[in-house]
């Protein structure tokens, strides 16, 4: 069977999303590690780094990637170990709701700077 990304949903879309969000987060990690190794001077330096236009843009992408990645990963764990549909639906819903809330909170933290 031919399975293409833009075809019907075979689970390939989530698989691909997991890779793309993972790459974004890995690049962000390397970028931030380099920035921190270059030296950050106290809270003022930390605030200055995080409020820089490019860093804020990159942090925003990181937060969205993290929450999306966590959604797919945690949902897959529930699907593997939790069989009763009712409990699974509850866990899926709580996971999604928590992650949407975390995304809003984290974005507000960087965007108010």
């Amino acid at each position, binding site marked *: 069977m031919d399975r293409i990304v833009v075809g019907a949903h075979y689970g390939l879309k989530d698989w691909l999303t997991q*890779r793309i969000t*993972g*790459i974004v987060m*890995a690049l962000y*990690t390397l970028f931030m590690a380099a920035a921190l190794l270059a030296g950050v001077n106290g*809270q003022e330096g*930390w*605030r200055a780094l*995080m409020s820089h236009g490019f860093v804020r843009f990159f942090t925003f992408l990181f937060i969205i990637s993290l929450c999306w990645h*966590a959604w797919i*990963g*945690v949902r897959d*764990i529930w699907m593997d170990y939790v069989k009763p549909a009712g409990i699974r639906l509850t866990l899926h819903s709580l*996971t999604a709701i*928590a992650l949407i809330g*975390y995304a809003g*909170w*984290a974005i507000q*933290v*960087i965007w108010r*700077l």
Partner: protein
Amino acid sequence: MPELIKPRPKFLNLFAIRLPLAGYASIFHRVSGIGLFLMLPLLIWLLDKSLSTAEAYAQFKAFFDCILVKLVLVGLLWAFLHHFCMGVRILLLDIHVGIDKVSAHNSSIAVMAVSLTLTAVLGAKLLGIY
């Protein structure tokens, strides 16, 4: 096709199954992922405090004084580093790099070695050892 349905042997005693190292690296990827997910509110709270007012920043720094907090953060540090290294390994396997048995075993050793070494180096810094 009922002739295809035949009883298969099931051997699911988790304590009797001996996983190869790559198997441990894989299950740790899952464990570290769920750990990071569960502790996400703590991590966002820390980010919030660190970027807020000077008083909040003092609160952020004081939070690190507790040894229990430090140990939890070292645990999360390992979780992040393992998840990162294993993620890179998975991406490489996806593009068919190191897919043979020997390379796959070696790369799982590399994942363990790099993540544990970095955890030791950065964790010692966090614990104030140097």
